[in-house]
């Protein structure tokens, strides 16, 4: 199944960092999502985009994971030549990940 069947995401930016959260619809799926969506797997998913690293923070009581991607936005919203200079669309793609 797709990650989109189990969780939803929101993306924000801070300078050249992208902040992508994942929240499960049902707390019962948290451990499964946590086991599959590791920082390494997220780094691999975004490898063509980011030049930095991925760190994962866990919030089990909310069923949520928070990923911080460094050197991810072409220098950040003010400098980036990308159309989506905030990288707001990044999290939507992650939901395509196979679980």
């Amino acid at each position, binding site marked *: 199944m797709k990650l989109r069947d189990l969780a939803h995401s*929101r993306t924000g930016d801070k*300078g050249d960092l992208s902040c992508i959260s994942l929240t499960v619809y049902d707390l019962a799926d948290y451990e499964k999502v946590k086991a599959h969506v590791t920082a390494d797997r997220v780094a691999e998913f975004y*490898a063509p985009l980011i030049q930095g690293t991925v760190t994962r923070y866990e919030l089990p009581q*909310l069923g949520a994971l928070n990923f911080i991607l460094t050197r991810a936005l072409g220098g950040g*919203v003010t*400098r980036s*030549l990308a159309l989506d200079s905030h990288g707001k669309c990044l999290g939507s793609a992650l939901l395509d990940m196979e679980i």
Partner: protein
Amino acid sequence: MRKIRIGSGAGFAGDRIDPAIDLIKYGNLDYIGFECLAERTIALAVRQKMNNPDEGYNDLLEERFRLILPAMQGSKVKIITNMGAANPQAAAAKVAEIARSLNISGVRIAAVTGDDVLALLPRMLELPVLETGQPLCACEGKIISANAYNGIDGILEALRRGANIIITGRVSDPALFLAPIVHEFGWTSDNWQLLGQGTVAGHLLECAAQVTGGYFADPGVKDVPDLWAVGFPIVEISPNGGFTLSKLPGSGGLVSTATVTEQLLYEILDPKAYLTPDVIADFSQVQINQVGPDMVQVRGGSGTAPSGQLKVSVGLDEGFIGEGEISYGGPGAAARARLAGEIIRKRIEYRQIPVRELRIDLLGLHSLYPYEMTRKLSNYVDDGHEIRLRVAAGTVDRRAAAAVGNEVEALYLNGPAGGGGARKYIRPVVGVLSVLIPKTWVQCQVKLLEV
């Protein structure tokens, strides 16, 4: 025990005004905060102020206050906003002028300043830039602004002096909402647990509709009722820091554990250490429970003492971005758009247009993500019935930026068959870098105007 009600009236500089006016009229609010100042907005506002000393505040300030002032008559609500941007005093004077023109009196307007630390630049040049690790003096581009993220102190002083409209420059976003809570409940400045929980409330309010169903809907998966009329949020908080978050009955949108969890994690880095000037807030143990339709209860925020340093956003003049776009349709659209992109690349090289960085995207195929990432998406298609070429170039001077857009426009006559809808744009680039300075270097000032 008395609770207080705080609304959010804006989550960015250009946000909608009508949901804020609805909150002022029908929300039974004690306070409403308008967060209108993104990182680079203040650098642009500094430029406006340099051109005209009476400008440099939020573009929509006048339009907003022409509606806010009549709406707040007869109510207890107080307004707190960073719409002052680079010029809170001129903003306050403008609000006073609007009040007089509307025959409204009994308004005490405070301008909170002190965030502009450009005068301290000589002392900051050797400080390391957080983003690069290099000293500030080693950065490229002319420094045009330096603004410290202040905490709640200036707003608190304005509240103590009886202001009912408070206009600041740069303050931390949650401070707009944390300050009135601290003022009302008399929380001490070292009660980190309460300040941390209050910061959770401020953080959830600062992006307005993003917690009430905005930036959330995904039809068929995450549906939001009447999103077109999404209501802005209301926090009702107790002296012990516990609060509910809701919106006006009858407004559109959705308040659920899902919408609030998404916003809790929005643009924070380590949930255990959300850095603000007033507290290092800990969001990691926050609990969110649905307690009614469109109402959640939030508790469990905490915190520890801040570092005693303030983040300073330094704005730099970094040249220009020149852009051009043109569309191709029907069979072969993608191939013609690709050919057009190759032509632009060769033309820039041939004419030796001084471009620092060049980006060529096919909108509709792979512009949001790199091709290597896009092609792995399950709904990827390798062609499209309409494709838009987009060219963007970073340049040092305006002429070069203009030349890039002109080359794209020239594809009408000189490019592949059937190019349409060409557009070109030029915009200045204001880069933002951060340094940390001791809090003791910064002194807030509060000036009151009465009408």
